[in-house]
């Protein structure tokens, strides 16, 4: 059996049904564990004080904001190339989750920035990039909402996601060029591991896993909803044509 068989709506509904509660429980467990661990049982950073605790939500949400867009890009490509409806619907289902993740990253970033940089908002390249990503998510969702025919909507949003991805990377580069930035990522970022001790790392890892599993649970749940909606529309269309046919006959 080919792997694409799993993308058939009925099969998808079959295999995803038990995963939703499983992933939900796992996500709740991991996030609760990570946040409690991070909030109550980690020391303060000697420079940032207790604000370092924001890292346990800021970094996972920022990571997911980008990963979700990448997942939407892959799903859109699968739809555009292989025409698997579930793939397009998964991309549609993921977008609102991506928006919330981006919003969390922006809000926690701004809250963190207030004591660290003395300002809520700085046109720092990373923050700016996330703002632009936020706009991309909004545009993507607005286009889905605006088009009535579901397959047309899937095609157009897929193309927008494709083109948007190129421009998102380009924007990141342009924004970097435009302002060299003051993000303190370097003192506490993943690519500077020597600066971050296991005390911070382990709960952060748990939180990142928790956010990832939460996304998995939500995207499956939302995709199932979208599939049901399509099925509902097919039934309604059949009702209409059936009624018309019997009326004429």
């Amino acid at each position: 059996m080919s792997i694409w068989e799993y993308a058939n709506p009925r099969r998808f509904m079959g295999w995803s049904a038990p995963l939703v509660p499983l992933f939900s429980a796992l996500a709740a467990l991991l996030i609760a564990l990570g946040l409690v661990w991070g909030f109550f049982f980690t020391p303060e950073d000697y420079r940032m004080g207790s604000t370092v605790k924001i890292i346990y939500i800021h970094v996972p949400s920022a990571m997911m904001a980008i990963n979700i867009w990448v997942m939407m890009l892959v799903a859109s490509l699968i739809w555009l190339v292989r025409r698997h409806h579930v793939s397009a619907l998964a991309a549609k289902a993921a977008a609102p989750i991506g928006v919330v993740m981006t919003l969390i990253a922006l809000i926690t970033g701004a809250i963190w920035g207030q004591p660290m940089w003395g300002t809520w908002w700085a046109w720092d390249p990373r923050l700016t990039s996330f703002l632009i990503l936020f706009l991309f998510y909004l545009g993507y969702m607005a286009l889905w909402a605006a088009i009535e025919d579901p397959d047309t909507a899937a095609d157009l949003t897929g193309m927008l996601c494709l083109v948007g991805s190129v421009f998102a990377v380009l924007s990141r580069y342009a924004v970097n060029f435009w302002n060299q930035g003051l993000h303190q990522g370097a003192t506490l970022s993943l690519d500077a591991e020597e600066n971050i001790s296991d005390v911070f790392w382990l709960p952060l890892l748990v939180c990142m896993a928790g956010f990832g599993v939460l996304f998995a649970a939500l995207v499956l749940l939302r995709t199932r909803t979208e599939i049901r909606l399509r099925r509902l529309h097919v039934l309604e269309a059949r009702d209409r044509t059936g009624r018309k046919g019997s009326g004429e006959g």
Partner: protein
Amino acid sequence: MRVEDLGCQRGGVPVLEGVSFTLAAGEALALRGPNGSGKTTLLRTIAGLQPPAGGRIELAEDSVAYGAHADGLKATLTVAENLAFWAAIHACDKVSEALEAFELRPLATRPAQKLSAGQKRRLGLARLLVTGRPLWLLDEPTVSLDADSVGLFGRAVRAHLSAGGAALIATHTDLGLEARVLDVTAFAATGGPAPGGFAEAFA
């Protein structure tokens, strides 16, 4: 041209299935059927504007001239300019013949926005002549034409057929043509599976 077992869909809903017919040079085929029976969808599918749901269309490349409900006229351009544009797009220089055939010569310098509905329709049909394409796909071509203009149109189609062209016409009026009739209601889709597997029930 030849159409075999063609299926058409509109907005993802199957409309026609199993449509088969052939159309040779010099022949005309009239499509009949009530509103919403899929005539426009069939024409659009053959014109290549929407993908078929199944079956085959055998057709020489770049041979179709599609005459839709909308005429594709620009209100601020004159009659002659409108025709000259489509002639240039199709690399064809039959503008003056087209003006003659539909008696548009006296109106040639008038902007399209100052034409009556029937005159606009005549201009839209004259566009077919400047495409130089052998197969005309016409969707309700005689809407808003008076009896004289219908006569003009019939003559133009006959001239086109005798020059080796062919025409597929969705119409309710009699054009005085030797045309076979194809009733599209015979091919109405019986509600086969909707695309994408959403026809299957699931919990």
